[in-house]
């Protein structure tokens, strides 16, 4: 070829080479990472950067996660100084738990406990094998929630007295069932027409519920389809966070409870929190990366939540760290000096689920299917009418909540109670 052509070609070649080098740089990680992790659970994984990083260089927490193992929140008293179960202990406890959960237990037919005991049936709940730790709480070292302040103790006491007042005329107290602990049988209480002493902010069936259905607000957050709270690290009705990241934000969709899922965005920013006048159910999250860990500060909670006693002053510091391709460690410190005498920390491990199976169910959602709420309100109004016409028992002597009887798959007490609680 001519010298001119040769010159053009060689210049062109150099230009192409330089442009090629520059363009390749940001995605250099991609080729390396396609080889990261060959276990089935990483099939369909994000096109990760090198060794667990996203293409833009942040630690990669993405995927569908759940806790493959159950761990009690607080250390059961009979394991007082043990941080870990032995393998034999775990196997034995699993055997006991499985037998109770899987067994077909009926209470006496025609009792309110038998009606409510539908949750014994394994089709409603999902239980898992026990994990190694005796408690999710790692600090304080005794694995128990620190004592609450006198103010919170008083609030709980007031709520308990109100609960008992609404139960005292029912069979629960007449037969001295565990739901009546601390109270005793008596006539219908005049407190039945009072507003509860504090906002009923519980989602847990059997905890803090009141025996009344005058208003939707009398029922639990779960029955109102608003049970999703922060922090959340699992329960027998299911818990699957789906994490998706971009450079400025981490999205976590919590598929939790029976269709009570919710969407959380953690902005990666050093902007200050929302003004203190703005309160939200799930607080206000601010995230930053510290090495391989996503640290999230959460404040601005509404007074309508109640996390183990803490309401609007709840302050969380979360630490999310990917330990390996299948494991995500979630540690969260709970701090609220108006509720607990000192902060406490839990640690939970999540395991990666199959991206392809995509078992994170944003729907069906509880609210759109909530036939239960109007039904129980209508039922209560029907009972009142029947009683007013002399055709039915006094609804105030019946139990609709806090009645006990196999909540969560275990009995209140005795041989079929949760082995961990005995």
């Amino acid at each position: 070829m001519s010298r001119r052509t040769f010159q053009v070609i060689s210049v062109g070649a150099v230009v192409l080479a330089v442009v090629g080098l520059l363009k390749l740089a940001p995605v250099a990680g991609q080729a390396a990472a396609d080889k990261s992790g060959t276990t089935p659970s990483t099939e369909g994984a994000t096109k990760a950067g090198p060794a667990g990083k996203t293409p833009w260089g942040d630690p990669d927490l993405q995927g569908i996660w759940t806790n493959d193992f159950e761990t009690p929140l607080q250390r059961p008293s009979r394991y007082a100084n043990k941080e870990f179960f032995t393998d034999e202990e775990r196997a034995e406890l699993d055997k006991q738990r499985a037998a109770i959960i899987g067994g077909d237990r009926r209470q006496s037919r025609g009792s309110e406990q038998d009606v409510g005991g539908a949750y014994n049936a394994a089709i409603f709940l999902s239980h898992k094998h026990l994990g190694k730790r005796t408690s999710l709480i790692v600090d304080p070292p005794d694995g128990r929630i620190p004592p609450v302040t006198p103010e919170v103790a008083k609030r709980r006491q007031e709520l308990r007295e109100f609960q008992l007042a609404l139960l005292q005329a029912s069979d629960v107290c007449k037969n001295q069932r565990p739901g009546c602990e601390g109270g005793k049988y008596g006539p219908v209480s005049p407190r039945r027409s009072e507003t509860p002493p504090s906002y009923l902010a519980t989602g847990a069936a059997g905890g803090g519920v009141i025996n009344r259905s005058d208003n939707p607000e009398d029922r639990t957050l779960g029955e109102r389809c608003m049970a999703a709270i922060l922090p959340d690290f699992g329960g027998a009705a299911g818990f699957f966070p789906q994490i998706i990241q971009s450079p400025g934000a981490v999205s976590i969709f919590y598929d939790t409870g029976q269709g009570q899922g919710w969407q959380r965005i953690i902005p990666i920013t050093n902007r200050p929190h929302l003004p203190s006048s703005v309160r939200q159910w799930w607080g206000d999250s601010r995230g930053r990366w510290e090495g391989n860990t996503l640290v999230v500060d959460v404040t601005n909670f509404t007074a309508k939540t109640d996390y183990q006693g803490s309401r609007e002053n709840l302050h969380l510091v979360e630490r999310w760290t990917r330990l390996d391709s299948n494991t995500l460690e979630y540690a969260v410190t709970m701090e609220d000096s108006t509720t607990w005498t000192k902060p406490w920390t839990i640690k939970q491990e999540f395991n990666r689920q199959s991206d392809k199976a995509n078992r994170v169910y944003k729907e069906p959602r509880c609210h759109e299917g909530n036939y239960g709420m109007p039904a129980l309100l209508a039922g209560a109004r029907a009972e009142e009418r029947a009683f007013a016409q002399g055709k039915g028992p006094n609804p105030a002597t019946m139990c609709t909540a806090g009645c006990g009887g196999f909540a969560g798959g275990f009995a209140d007490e005795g041989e079929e109670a949760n082995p961990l609680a005995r």
Partner: protein
Amino acid sequence: MQIKLAMAVAGLVLVGAAGSLSAHHAFAAEFDANKPVKMKGTVTKMEWTNPHVWLHMDVKQPDGTVQNWAFEAGTPNVLFRRGFTKQSLMPGTEVIVDGYQAKDGSRRANGRDLTFPDGRKLFMGSSGTGAPYELTPDGQGQAPKTPPAK
């Protein structure tokens, strides 16, 4: 008594081993302990809604008329994770329900026990492809071999 009360109060907050969220609602508020029902019918429609699946069934009455009833069954998310889908229980299937009728007297009941005519429980077991972490009665972590209710 003081200690017991404190424990009871603490216990109220601690329901559920690992965490915060638990079952949806108290059946005792919606269904009547004094109105037990037991009936056999044919599925006409399935509603896979949270918090509870609804099984609509045609139930033949002793006098030959047919009534349509709705029974609350399991929880969709839990069932989906075990591999059940909307194909798993199709119209035309015969089911026996043992439960309690709604307090407002409508033709609804909670499905306290749900079985096929051969005695197999509805929605127990799984397709084997989901929920490998589940604790099962044999304690081994294997999904029971019973096929999904079809």
